[in-house]
């Protein structure tokens, strides 16, 4: 049995707060410092901390590498999706003013467009950071 009680309990207590803080950074990015990139890194940091304390095997059970890879790709798809959506609504690529109906206030489109692409950045950065950590931590030591 692992006797690093403080580390294990501390991680268990901290993890949900780290995740919530990441979401705060994400959604507060419109009003203060923060945004998708920082939020994605913080979100991934919670899983990295979990993996460091409880071992890679347990972390992979919580967050399979495949999910991380899919997240890394899905974020780009979300970002491009918002861009194409505004294109199909009659505007230019990534011109969020056209996201809603023409009589709608274009700044609403801008606001939701930014939320959409920030979500894409969050998902990609989170997936990539976790995938990178798995790639480095999953290898065996090379003894020469």
């Amino acid at each position: 049995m692992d006797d690093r009680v403080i580390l294990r309990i501390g991680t268990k207590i901290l993890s949900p707060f780290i995740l919530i803080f990441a979401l705060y950074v994400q959604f507060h990015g419109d009003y203060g410092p923060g945004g998708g990139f920082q939020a994605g890194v913080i979100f991934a940091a919670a899983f990295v901390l979990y993996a460091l304390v409880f071992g890679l095997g347990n972390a992979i059970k919580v967050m399979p590498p495949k999910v991380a890879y899919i997240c890394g790709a899905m974020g780009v798809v979300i970002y491009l999706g918002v861009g194409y959506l505004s294109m199909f609504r009659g505007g230019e690529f990534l011109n969020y003013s056209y996201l809603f109906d023409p009589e709608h206030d274009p700044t609403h489109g801008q606001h939701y467009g930014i939320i959409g692409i920030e979500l894409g950045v969050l998902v990609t950065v989170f997936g990539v950071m976790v995938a990178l950590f798995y790639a480095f931590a999953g290898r065996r030591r090379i003894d020469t």
Partner: protein
Amino acid sequence: MTETMVQLVDVVLLVLLAITGIAVIRTRNLFVAVMLAGIYSLLSAGLFVVMDAVDVAFTEAAVGAGISTVLMLGTLALVGYKESAPTHKPILPLFVVLVTGGILVYGTAEIPPFGGADNPAHKHVAAHYIHDSEEEIGHIPNVVTSVLGSYRGYDTMGETAVIFTAMVGVLLLLSRGPLPKRIFHAGQWHTVKAGTTREDMVAKFGGDAGPDETVKDGPARTEGGADG
């Protein structure tokens, strides 16, 4: 904060930054070097805060001091903590570093004063962003978000794609990937049964199975070696 306070904080941070940088160069223990590099990032983040670039500081603290330190530690776990002794004289690298540093310091003479309202950076589109983003983008008080997300949407899209590409590259180089369906060992093909772990493979096939590659080159299928 008064002007002298800001300068005092600047001096303290820069001195600590210089000390950390010299310590990173001098230490031969890579574990110490990685931890000091993390502290270096954190000090830079502090400097960015003093310069009112909180978004950049945030990123620097999260990525530079956090994730990249963990990734470096993961690398050290693979390659060991000892730096091997240098095999060449440091004269040429020192010369290159001194010349480059000298050019950079010479270049700072031309840089406009920090925070000056008449700086070229503030004359171009920045004034437009600050003045009109409320009207054009809506009520997003953090103009940085408006610029990154909307005005410079293409840039951020490219950055997201670059991050994704980084993942693809690292996975291609480092990932172990799925187990091969069949493997060539001791002159013939073996089918890998379902449920076999990588450790089983290494125990059975030795170097042919591990640690990271998939199927080794064997004879072509038509030569009768294939069992599938």
